[in-house]
């Protein structure tokens, strides 16, 4: 072991600065997301709390997608379906509680809504994952998108729940003690959820499971050669990712109180994917940074011009061309240059 120690110190130092930087970024983001919206809300800028709530909920979905996209290299183009499923898991029981019918599921009980959202997304991910994961690359992208569109049209065809026109949720999910009707409570729930989920994903990415996923992303043939059948691990990750997005949908339904098939359209899946790529798929906070920039830009640009898609698209192209690993790589780059200077 003597030969090993000689080369280790500077690598260990690198790893330490990496850990310090991760902690700094985490602390900064947590502080901003905890304080800024609260202050804005309490000083009367209630609209900004809405923006931040939407942002945090979509960040949860982006973190969920990134579990398979960034860590596992599986590019799913159908993750809006889970958001929709999660939202309808709130909307449909609430609808029946208000208008009758389907007594078995008619309830405002939040725990029931939550359990339904997670179960349905897990099942949908399991069934579509079993099939989709037999393909790779572009085929995987297309088949996940096809399954999501299938779900989209299934919901459109449900006349009872408004079909194309969508469904208004009259009563939000009911929980003991807290009330999601209070915007600040809803924001706090979403924010704390995001922090917990980011932490879970962080643990997972360094676990044996996470390393297996990264190995499969990096070189699947090599994984086979060392005796690992990646399929079951990828399927497990696919289901976990779907469940996280389903949870985001549960929150989004409670936030918007109006849900429609439009929220599971393929363009919505694209938006989550853009958040991940914009922020940086290889970084823990990348998807969160991506969601923040996406939502704020969308808001600011649409204030300036109705043709906001144009400058927005240009910015996206710019970021993909010049920031290969997303916005979060800016932090990384400045660090590695400093490293070379030493």
């Amino acid at each position, binding site marked *: *072991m003597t*030969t*090993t120690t*000689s*080369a*280790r110190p500077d*690598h260990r130092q*690198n*790893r330490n600065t990496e850990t310090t930087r991760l902690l700094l970024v985490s602390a900064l983001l947590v502080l901003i997301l905890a304080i800024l919206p609260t202050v804005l809300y309490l000083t009367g800028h209630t609209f900004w709390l809405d923006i931040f709530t939407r942002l945090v909920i979509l960040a949860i979905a982006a973190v969920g997608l990134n579990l398979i996209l960034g860590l596992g290299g599986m590019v799913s183009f159908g993750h809006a379906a889970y958001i929709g499923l999660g939202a309808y898991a709130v909307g449909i029981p609430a609808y029946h509680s208000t208008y009758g019918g389907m007594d078995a599921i008619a309830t405002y009980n939040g725990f029931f809504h939550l359990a339904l959202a997670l179960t349905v997304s897990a099942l949908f991910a399991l069934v579509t994952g079993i099939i989709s994961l037999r393909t790779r690359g572009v085929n995987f992208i297309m088949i996940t998108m096809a399954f999501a569109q299938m779900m989209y049209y299934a919901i459109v065809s449900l006349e009872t729940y408004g079909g194309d026109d969508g469904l208004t949720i009259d009563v939000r999910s009911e929980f003991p003690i807290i009330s999601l009707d209070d915007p600040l409570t809803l924001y706090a729930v979403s924010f704390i959820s995001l922090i917990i989920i980011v932490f879970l994903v962080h*643990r*997972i990415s*360094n*676990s*044996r*499971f*996470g*390393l*297996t996923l*990264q*190995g499969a992303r*990096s*070189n699947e*043939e*090599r*994984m*086979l*050669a*060392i*005796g*690992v*059948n990646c399929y079951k*691990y990828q399927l*497990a990750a696919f289901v976990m990712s779907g469940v996280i997005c389903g949870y985001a949908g549960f929150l989004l339904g409670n936030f918007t109180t109006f849900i429609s098939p439009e929220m599971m359209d393929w363009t919505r899946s694209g938006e989550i994917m853009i958040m991940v790529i914009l922020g940086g798929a290889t970084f823990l906070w990348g998807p969160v940074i991506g969601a923040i920039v996406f939502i704020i830009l969308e808001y600011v640009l649409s204030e300036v011009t109705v043709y906001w898609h144009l400058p927005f698209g240009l910015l996206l192209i710019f970021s993909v061309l010049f920031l290969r690993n997303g916005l979060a790589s800016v932090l990384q780059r400045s660090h590695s240059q400093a490293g070379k200077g030493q």
Partner: protein
Amino acid sequence: MTESILQVVNLCKSFGGVHATDQVSLSVRHGEIHALIGPNGAGKTTLISQLSGLLRPDSGKILFDNKDITGYAAYQFSQAGLARSFQITSVFQDLSLLDNVALAVQANDGHAFRFWHNARKDQRLRTPAMQYLQQVQLSDQAEQIASEVSHGERRQLEIAMALATSPKLLLLDEPMAGMGQDESSLIIEILKNLRGDKSILLVEHDMDAVFALADTISVLVYGQIIATGTSAEIKTNTAVQKAYLGEDAA
């Protein structure tokens, strides 16, 4: 004769009209280094692919450790104790050398449905991984990313990864491909140290390496084994000289 660890019986594989593997029978004894040589296009890679489960033979049998493993999936070959390295270097480019080997150790340590504990701090993975890196003389570069080290070092890494799955037989597909003299002799040294400890089936173009290492040599030409014997026997075999060495001499 010592019992064989690997026995290939009448293996056949054709692509269209081409008999890439034609009635190949071959046996690797416990603890020996068995070299498989043959001119380009002889079907060496096709044979290796069948011996590692990447290709399914049309007919014939693969007996490994007294078990019929014909038709197993690629990952099951490795689980059975048959580890391979690739002719074209195949490692996890974006992970550190230590992570690369640790993944191979982990692959041999039960399922990976463990979501919480930090595998990068797990000494049950890191300590053996470090030992395998030492065995191929890479322990100094353990924390470097695989894409940043030299070609030769990545070849060494591949051997470490194969060793990390605790195989009974190593299947090395041209481990010296694209290497300079110094790098080749390092690999030869590493393989020499494994002699007796591991059975090795070595596919190699580098004749110096083959004659320096192999206990037994089999010669594959147009999908068929035309000769099997010690280096001395192979060197003097006229059929081999004609088919293989003759070309080199010309």
